[in-house]
């Protein structure tokens, strides 16, 4: 976090233009406003003082104004970040729910036909670039078949009040008579982009789950279970899956960073009103305050997800907890 803030602080010096304007986004400021800003950011003190002033502003949630829209960056982030969180979580769930079971199947049928097919298909899935897959999905499912919508988070017909920003929760909180239709409409909107994002991480989960399962199936306690006379499927259900899952969960956090990157590109293709699209637009508009605000928000988000998955891993795996106590 420290490094991150240091990096984003130095960005305001590296971007072309006046550092004070880069950091505050006040492009139309009068000389009085500028001198006030200079005082706030302690521009005349040494660099360390300036950094402290900057971090102080960060802790108060002040990220300056967007150079393009002149809106506070923090409100823009709050309005765009939840849509990305929603999309990423749904994509992650889809990736896990498809990838992990398939990986287990591959491990169970290790070196057999099913294993080979799954491995080669997942290799293909992993190598398809996400922007191409997104366009292909729109072409097939939206244009040719007309099953799923191609753009946006929900049909504009539905008015959903922005409460948490997470569309599904907002819909459930709203008291509109069209609540359930709105819910269905939102699910049909999220399905296609989420599947597109989920494909590459899902193939990673296939490999992770397969390796984890193979390790577990090799272990002593499985042999013990076999010796106790459990049937093969009983053994898989009661012992193997649970223990293999623990290993997979450990890597979810790592995959999440990858997934968010994919989500950024996908948001542009599916016109998803998330932070990725906003950030890419800001980059093309040279909106420096937005770029560094968005960068901070996204990295903090990924950081938080890492911590959460670590906690879940620790909760699930007694070994990890004991290790920590021991060391």
């Amino acid at each position, binding site marked *: 976090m420290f490094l991150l803030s240091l990096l984003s602080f130095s960005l305001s010096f590296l971007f072309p233009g006046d550092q004070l304007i880069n950091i505050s986004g006040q492009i139309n400021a009068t000389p009085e406003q500028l001198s006030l800003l200079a005082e706030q950011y302690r521009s005349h003190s040494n660099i360390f003082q300036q950094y402290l002033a900057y971090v102080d502003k960060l802790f108060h949630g002040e990220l300056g104004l967007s150079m393009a*829209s002149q809106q506070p960056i923090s409100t823009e982030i709050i309005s765009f970040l939840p849509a990305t969180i929603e999309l990423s979580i749904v994509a992650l*769930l*889809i990736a*896990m*729910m498809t990838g992990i079971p398939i990986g287990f199947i591959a491990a169970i049928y290790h070196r057999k036909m099913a294993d080979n097919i799954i491995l080669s298909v997942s290799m293909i899935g992993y190598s398809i670039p996400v922007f191409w897959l997104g366009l292909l999905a*729109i072409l097939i499912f*939206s*244009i040719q078949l*007309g*099953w*799923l*919508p*191609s*753009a*946006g988070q929900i*049909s*504009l*017909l*539905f*008015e959903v009040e922005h409460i948490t920003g997470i569309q599904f929760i907002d819909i459930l909180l709203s008291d509109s*008579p*069209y609540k*359930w*239709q709105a*819910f*269905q*409409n939102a*699910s*049909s909107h999220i*399905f296609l982009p989420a599947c597109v994002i989920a494909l590459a991480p899902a193939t990673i989960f296939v490999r992770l789950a397969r390796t984890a399962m193979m390790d577990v199936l090799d272990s002593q306690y499985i042999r013990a279970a076999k010796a106790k006379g459990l049937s093969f499927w009983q053994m898989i259900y009661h012992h193997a*899956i*649970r223990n293999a*899952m*623990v290993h997979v*969960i450990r890597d979810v956090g790592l995959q999440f960073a990858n997934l968010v990157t994919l989500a950024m590109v996908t948001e542009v293709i599916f*016109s998803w*009103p998330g932070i990725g699209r906003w950030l890419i637009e800001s980059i093309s508009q040279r909106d420096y305050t937005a770029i560094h605000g968005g960068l901070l928000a996204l990295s903090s988000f990924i950081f938080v997800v890492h911590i959460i998955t670590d906690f879940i891993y620790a*909760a*699930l795996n007694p070994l990890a907890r004991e290790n920590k106590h021991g060391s």
Partner: protein
Amino acid sequence: MMCFHKKRLTSLFLLCCLASLPACDGDGENKQSLSKNSIIYCSEGAPESFNPQTVTSGTTIDATSNQLYNRLISFKGEQNTIAPSLAKSSHVTRDGKMITFYLRKNVAFHQTDYFTPTRFFNADDVLFSFNRILSIDHPYHHISGGKYPFFQSVNFSSVVESIEKINDYTVRFKFKYADSSILSNLASDFAVILSKEYADNLALKNQQHKIDTSPIGTGPFKLKEYRPGAFIRYAPHENYWDKNTSLEQLIFDITPSNTGRLTKLLAGECDVIAFPIAHQKIKSKAALKLEAVTSFNVAYLGFNTQKPPFNNVKVRQAVALAVNKKAIIDTVYRGKADIAHSLLPATSWAYNKNILPQPFDIKRAEDLLKDAGFPQGFTMNLWAVPVQRAYNPDAITMAKLIQANLKKIGIKVVIENSLDMGTFLELLSRGEHQSVLLGWSADHLDPDNFFTPLLSCSAALSGNNRTFWCNDEFDDFIQKALKTTNISQRKTFYDKALAIIAAEVPLIPIAHSKRFQARHSSVSGKLLSPFGGIDFSEVSKN
């Protein structure tokens, strides 16, 4: 056991997801009820303002004029004649220097979250709306920049002497001189009526700028929500004075990308889209309809009538006979235009149906050239700019086609296309060219807008008349046509003026381009008119 719980939860979620998917297609009469009476229009851009007085961009006009506002008078019908709107009748004095408008009673302004009107529309609102434009001292004149481009271009402030309130429902416009195009200007999409009461309320709160961003009008729809660059949501105006709309919601989904709009149309996310591409694809779907309307513009080939050889009318006539307009329409416009038989498009009320199409006749052209003393032909230059215009998508290709046409009668055409737009117009106004490919988009529906700026003697003096053609008889007719307000009288004058153009050929009208729109066949009602913005007031869904 925690992971089992998690798995159960996630599989539950998956089930929910899957269960909801097929449901969106078939299920739910309620869904129908919401989308049945709502229209989503995918527009090509975001409006700059919600007050059409302050802009000229078509995108803003589309989003505001006909949806949010009304005008005193408006254009109606096939021929776009002037019809009553907020003024239920009007009276023009014999000398054309005074117009009295008798206003409609019980016309309500929008009631919204930000404003609740306490009175109906009256003369004060008319005075407010126009004095804001006319008077530099008006407290609202300089709000939003003080620019009223349309009104400046038609010299509104130099024509209008004063606007008087006779009583609450009678307003009189006094003019410095008679100008029969003034009615067309007042009926144009720009001359909307704002609420004075709302302006006064804003002034009290010191929020004057909101008059153009949070609009209040008398139109069939009111603004409910605008998310800049994303969408505009309109609700019907319950107390609309005219026929109420059957729609429950009107949404402008702002989609600047051409392919994005097409995708949304094909995927059923938009009911209507602006400026569609891939016309063949749209036509091939039974559920979609492609419509076109001929715009109020003209592309022409103009001759510099002051310079030889085009000071000779026979040479001009010969060239006119040798140009294959049909081939130009097919190649340059790909069929997205009508052949221009005269300067005026067929949708103008002054259009003369009796004008015969210009024949394509090489033989007669050669004879005319011989008569004119050019049996061997000659070399001429033809100026064109490689900039896409509304009336001409590709002037260079058009120039090449004309080059090939004229080669057949022995005229060698040198295409001059190396100039940038600024120099090009500058040199044209000095008359450096021999012939030029140009065009004209009308500012309003009055036919005069095609004659005076393009071919009058005064325009020849200022250099705006690129043909430098000055015909006293022609000038006389178009002047007379402006001095009277009797439509049939005006039409006879314009018929005579058109006949002079046809005989003298100072320019060859080539094409009137079209504006396109695509919609789902469930959407019915008129949307486009040849001039001005889109209009959703008569649209319904079934």
